[in-house]
């Protein structure tokens, strides 16, 4: 009999990084189902390809290049790959997705030190990288086909609701769609972003499992609603309604799944409030003023870069100290 003397505490939760990642993947299943339903089988293929290739690449980097024998796949790369796939148009060629995965995992994640060390959300950084590298592929959108077995080559291109708003005005948006379609995802856009309702369903699962920095989506979406409400009153035709801004584009996917990525967001509650507000205001600025119709990815990446500063200035008040005693 051997006596062990490893340090306290001697009981640990049965929780693990892998369990967290699996929960995130489970929470994204409704979005994958919605994407497959609206854009056909190609959406499912891209999602799986993203997950498998990202996980395989991470395994290669750590086990072969870094010779880390203790590395066990934890699913974090699969989450990145899946999120990237969900952020692409259904007609994206498979090799473009692979380039995105390579950029996300090799450059954004592992040159910064791997899991937990990256500053930027790998999936979002890769999406913006692809947007710059393949502008055509990344901005060609397709009309939903509403059939699980449909094939994307049969479908027509369309403009996203946000692009219609930007180019033609708010009233034009509703010539081709309505709020019901916007909420369920029956509009043009990325594979995983269009169905606000099913994304919210996945979010509820994460909430139930305690896997999410819940303050961020609350303040993010709250500030989007607030800003758009103010501007809607100024000029409804140009700026669009708050409900429209909530349901259209990538806000739900971004606010619920990208801005809540544990690694690239602040650690304290106060910091998370600032992060969410910053994302929301920035998103609306891009939607209203910038050349791109959508600003979710850019705003989250920008706020990612500010996380170290936010963390530094939002340290919690230590028990038994007064506010001004701390640095």
């Amino acid at each position, binding site marked *: *009999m*051997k*006596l*062990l*003397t*490893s*340090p*306290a*505490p*001697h*009981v*640990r*939760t049965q*929780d*693990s*990084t892998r*369990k*967290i990642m699996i929960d995130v993947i489970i929470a994204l299943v409704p979005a994958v189902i919605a994407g497959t339903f609206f854009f056909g089988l190609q959406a499912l293929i891209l999602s799986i390809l993203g997950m498998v290739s990202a996980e395989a690449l991470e395994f290669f980097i750590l086990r072969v290049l870094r010779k880390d024998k*203790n590395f066990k796949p*934890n699913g*974090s790369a699969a989450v990145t790959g899946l999120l990237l796939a969900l952020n692409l148009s259904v007609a994206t060629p498979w090799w473009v997705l692979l380039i995105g995965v390579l950029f996300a995992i090799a450059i954004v994640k592992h040159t910064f030190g*791997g*899991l*937990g*060390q990256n500053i930027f959300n790998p999936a979002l950084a890769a999406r913006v990288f692809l947007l710059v590298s393949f502008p055509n592929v990344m901005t060609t959108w397709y009309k939903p086909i509403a059939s699980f077995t449909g094939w994307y080559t049969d479908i027509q291109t369309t403009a996203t609701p946000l692009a219609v708003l930007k180019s033609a005005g708010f009233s034009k948006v509703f010539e081709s769609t309505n709020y019901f379609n916007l909420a369920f995802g029956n509009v043009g856009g990325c594979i995983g972003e269009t169905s606000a309702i099913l994304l919210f369903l996945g979010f509820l699962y994460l909430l139930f499992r305690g896997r999410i*920095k819940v303050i961020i989506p609350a303040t993010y979406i709250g500030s989007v609603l607030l800003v758009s409400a103010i501007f809607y009153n100024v000029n409804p035709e140009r700026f669009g309604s708050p409900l429209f801004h909530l349901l259209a584009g990538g806000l739900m996917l971004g606010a619920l799944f990208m801005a809540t990525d*544990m*690694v*690239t*967001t602040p*650690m*304290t509650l106060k910091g998370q409030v600032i992060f969410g507000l910053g994302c929301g205001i920035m998103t609306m600025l891009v939607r209203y003023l910038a050349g791109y119709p959508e600003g979710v990815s850019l705003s989250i990446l920008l706020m990612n870069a500010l996380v170290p500063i936010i963390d530094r200035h939002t*340290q*919690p*008040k*230590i*028990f*038994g*100290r007064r506010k001004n*005693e*701390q*640095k």
Partner: protein
Amino acid sequence: MKLLTFKGGVHPPENKLTEDEKIQRAPLPDKVVVMMAQHAGAPAKVIVQVGQQVKTGQVIGEPQGPISAYVHSPVTGTVTNIAKVNSAVHGMAVEAVNIERSGEDEWELLPKLDWSKASKEEIIEQVKVAGIVGLGGAMFPTHVKLSPSKPVDVLIINGAECEPYLTIDHRVMLEMDEEILEGIEITKKVLGVNEVYIGIESNKKDAIEYLERKWNGKVKVAALKTKYPQGAEKQLIKAITGKEVPSGGLPADVGVVVQNVSTMIAIKEAVVDGKPLVERGMTLTGEGVNKRGNWWIRIGTPISWIIENLGGGLVNKYNELKVLMGGPMMGIPVPNLDTPLLKGNNGITVISEQKRESTNCIRCSYCVYVCPMNLQPYLLDLLARKKKYDDAAAIGLFDCIECGSCTYICPANVEHVKSIKLAKKVYRSLRGGKK
């Protein structure tokens, strides 16, 4: 029932396997090993020689300096050896007196004190010569705690017992309530306080109801939410009074003194019966021993004897086990089973290891949410491992109470407490004992 609590904390599996086991008196051990450091502060000085006959309750160690305590012989017998042994608690070798028992107890008692007539100073002196220290685990000399430097108006009795597995405080509250109450009356008189609370976690509902009925308002029973570390001194004070002990300060800074329930029994026995602190209640528990129970046992009894004679030996199927002084959250693993029971050991927990690899922090914030001191454990760990001790001290290294909530909850199994403990040690030695 309204449950009081604090912000943060975790809820590990309670595993109170022995909560229904009545306290039994353990037989006397053949041999005891009495450490001279069974209290916070300077170790006591041995005043007996090898070969000398000692009686139960006879002083064998005298305090050195203001924060130190008397040590008494727990059996009647012969001193066979005086040598340094490694103390897992102190992390160094301390002097210990080995005594072989020659027969039944011959007591050497202190003069009994009529506490209703005795002066405050006389009672404190009695507590001091009885060698009483805090029995909750910290082992701070009780006579020092009974003479706070600032006026206090609230006495809190700690019956929270938030550590998983341990049940001795629960059992003494059910079985020895009269001794506890008398101990409280004595302590009240010494401190000059009128307001007394006993804080009990809601998983000991029977004790809450029993004491409410039995004590009938003489002590206010505060029902606490079952949450670890509810029994940590600062968190207990916050839950019951709403006051925060200032950083680096003592409970007396907010007018409070906290004492463990078992300490109350020791005070009563010392003052009323003249009995020095040579025995205490203890829980023997965990899946690694064959028999579990609550025992009234002599201090200095070797753990090997306890496991063999009270626990029916270790369970055979394990190749590796952890034998802990205390519970699984803050307990100290003993490196060998000859280690004796100390005054502050409220339990011996024998459990198997849950081995897990540490992986990268994924910034999930769980540690920040659960920290009862509102610290940032992930950052303290990071700074400690980068040897940035000054930076760590600036964000509250020394506010950490080492409760282990962060490490318990961490999905990446980061060893925050290990690096924080090490950083404190290094910082103290680098900064010449400052802080």
